[in-house]
């Protein structure tokens, strides 16, 4: 070998580094998306239950959440906005301050023995401090009636807090009697709050005569114990069917987003495929080379219109049309829905798909066309029974690639889909049809919209990165599969 000069060596090094960079970028994307997803695992699962000790026949019998003396026992949840500093540490109310007949107090989560609880440290509610649920968490609830209460029995009522979805919580939740007051006969009980999230139980009255008696009465206990490991719980949360990252009880279910994205891509490809296939075959097989010369660039011109512009076009011109026709017929109000986004997605896919299919038709060797002609077949027969079947795997590959494009499309879905995550419903024909005019929210648009309002490196941020990683893996798998199909169809002459 000839001795290489320094310039040549540097050159070779630079070229190789750039080549390796391609793999590096893929690995880096994977690494960082997965890395930032770890913040999703900081997730705390909220629990919220309202408990109240009520008169046996009271006005809030049916609805605990209306009872002003009910106590909200919460886990991992920060207090509601309206609570000010003072209320935050509202101590156990004195008998004097209680005008009601029965009342309640929660203590801090129980640590150690019941006897060692300091009454001075008990608060009526302690909403603010976040309580961890990583191991078994127990809440004490003290219950007593004030002296003016005369009935022989009173009732313990409980209900889950509004917005709290008990089916999705990763904890086993029980409510039990920890201690009965001295001299009161009561059967011990233990309620599984999962099977009985709302209920009412009559127990003998205990009256606190002095302030010291307040902590000598009933003590109930709400126990939250994890049923699975934390990682399982977070992943289980992702697999659930509701995406509400900003509600009082946050829910991070990916299912509605995944279904919307997959559904939109399917709808769009079904709409676009016949048109694109026909156009591609026409351009490739039926038209003169002159026509082809300007037709292909024209089609690529539509493919290059920025999607935010296409989205706006759909918003002003297609959404009102949808709203006045199909949405009205199916009882929906807005034109911004699944079908509108799907139609404009199809408009985007038609040029993309046409161009890809045309390429794979062009790859079919001329000899096959000549062979068909020699058999006396008409042009249409040659195309239909020879050329298209010969290019089949390339055509399928083109569709797969177009699906990947539709799955990753952000702006069109953002602008046109209505932006509300929802699960499709197939109970009957009418509901199945109504899915078309429902507002939806897909994966890419959710990431783009919500990333603007999140705390960096928080739980929501972590979940958005997990969605991004999911998107990356899906499109990667689709593109590799499409590439394999298209390579198979490359004819070697």
């Amino acid at each position, binding site marked *: 070998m000839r001795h290489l000069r320094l*310039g040549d060596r540097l*050159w070779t090094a630079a*070229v*190789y580094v*750039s*080549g390796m960079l*391609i*793999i590096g*970028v*893929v690995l*880096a*994307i994977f690494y*960082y*998306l997965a*890395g*930032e997803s770890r913040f999703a695992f900081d997730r705390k699962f909220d629990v919220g239950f309202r408990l109240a000790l009520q008169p046996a026949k009271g006005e809030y019998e049916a609805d605990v959440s209306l009872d002003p003396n009910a106590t909200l026992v919460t886990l991992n949840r920060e207090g509601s906005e309206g609570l000010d500093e003072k209320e935050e540490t509202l101590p156990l109310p004195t008998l004097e301050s209680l005008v009601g007949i029965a009342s309640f107090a929660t203590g801090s989560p129980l640590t150690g023995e019941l006897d060692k609880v300091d009454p001075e440290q008990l608060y009526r509610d302690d909403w603010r401090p976040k309580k961890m649920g990583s191991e078994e968490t127990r809440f004490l609830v003290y219950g007593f009636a004030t002296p003016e209460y005369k009935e022989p029995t009173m009732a313990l009522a409980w209900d889950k807090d509004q917005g709290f979805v008990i089916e999705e919580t990763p904890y086993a939740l029980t409510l039990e009697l920890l201690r009965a007051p001295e001299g009161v006969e009561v059967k011990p009980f233990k309620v599984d709050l999962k099977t009985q999230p709302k209920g009412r139980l009559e127990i003998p009255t205990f009256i606190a005569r002095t302030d010291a008696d307040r902590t000598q009465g009933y003590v109930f206990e709400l126990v939250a114990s994890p049923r699975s490991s934390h990682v399982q719980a977070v992943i289980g949360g992702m697999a659930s069917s509701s995406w509400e990252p900003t509600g009082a009880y946050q829910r991070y279910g990916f299912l509605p987003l995944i279904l919307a994205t997959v559904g939109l891509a399917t709808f769009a490809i079904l709409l676009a495929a*016949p*048109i694109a*296939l*026909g*156009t591609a075959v*026409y*351009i490739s097989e*039926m038209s003169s080379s002159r026509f082809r010369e300007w*037709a292909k*660039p*024209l*089609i690529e*011109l*539509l493919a*290059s219109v*920025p*999607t*935010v*512009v*296409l989205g706006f*076009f759909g918003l002003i011109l297609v959404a009102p049309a949808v709203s006045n026709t199909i949405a009205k017929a199916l009882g929906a109000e807005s034109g911004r829905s699944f079908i509108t986004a799907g139609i404009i997605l199809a*408009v985007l896919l*038609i*040029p993309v798909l046409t161009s890809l299919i045309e390429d794979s038709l062009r790859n079919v060797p001329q000899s096959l066309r000549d062979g068909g002609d020699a058999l006396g077949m*008409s042009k249409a*027969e040659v*195309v239909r029974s020879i050329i298209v079947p010969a290019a089949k795997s390339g055509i399928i590959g083109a569709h797969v*690639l177009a699906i990947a*494009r539709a*799955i*990753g499309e*952000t*702006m069109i879905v953002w602008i046109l889909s209505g932006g509300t995550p929802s699960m499709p419903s197939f109970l009957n024909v009418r509901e199945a049809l109504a899915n078309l005019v429902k507002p939806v929210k897909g994966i*890419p648009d959710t*990431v*783009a919209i919500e*990333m603007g309002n999140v705390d*960096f490196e928080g739980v929501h941020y972590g979940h958005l990165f997990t969605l*991004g990683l999911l998107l990356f893996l899906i*499109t*990667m798998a689709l*593109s*590799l599969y499409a*590439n394999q199909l298209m390579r198979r169809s490359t004819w070697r002459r």
Partner: protein
Amino acid sequence: MATVIDKAKREGLEARDAQRARSSRRYLGLLTGAAVVTFLLIVGIIGTILIKGLPSINWAFLSDLPREGMTAGGIWPMIRGSLLLMFGTMLVVLPVGVLGGIYMAEYAGESRFVGLIRSSLVSLAATPSIVYGLFGLAVFVLAWKLGTSLMAGWLTLALFSLPVVIITTESAIRAVPESLVEGGLALGLSKGQTIRKIVLPNAASGIATGIVLSTGRAAGEAPPILLTAGIYYSTGQLEMNLETLRKPVANLPYHLAEGYRQGGVIPESIIWGTCVVLMGLVLLINLGAILVRARSRARSLQS
């Protein structure tokens, strides 16, 4: 259908020929119909946007700053921002993309490892822009502490356009006739010298087309800019110094996306005008690329 064939069987070859001709005509009709739909869509959509948007475009619209909280005035800062993003991206992607393309065309050869590189390239080319946006946010904005800035936008958009630049560069280099390369080697040039002095100049127009096309597309792509470089409200003069690189920049796609998010603040005529400017920017780049391609094809036919 089936009954028709039965009938054809009964009535013999003549009827079958008639049937074949009919079916061929029907097939051709379907194809023509599909093509007509496609071209009507293209002309309809681009035409509608032009008709709606062109009336709002005049010199003042293109050169003025926005006034009265974006409800009046021009969109010059956004145009300027988009051009800045595009040219910066071009500068960043040029060396890496071209060297990567040279590697793929001239150095890679065929091996299992190169197969892995090709698969990576294919995956990257199909990766949605929002994923690049997330990556740019995690790496350039947060980990490298560049913040939401022009610099972070350049790097993110450069990554986004990298696979296309590499692929087009590779095919431009492969299109250079083998005889030229052999001529260079016969003159005693090293491989590197042959590539630099003979292959690259011959592939230059193809490479340039690829870079301009992909960065043009990147500049129209909202999601990466949204997460790494965008700012909605900009009325001030842009001072060109090093600090500019660390600041977010107003630009056309972000302006449209955000204008939509704010919901009805910006009058429709301004949005249509902005649409036309953004589309025009990207379409002009495309048209230019098509012309370059056509000219180079004509030249290669002549020689």
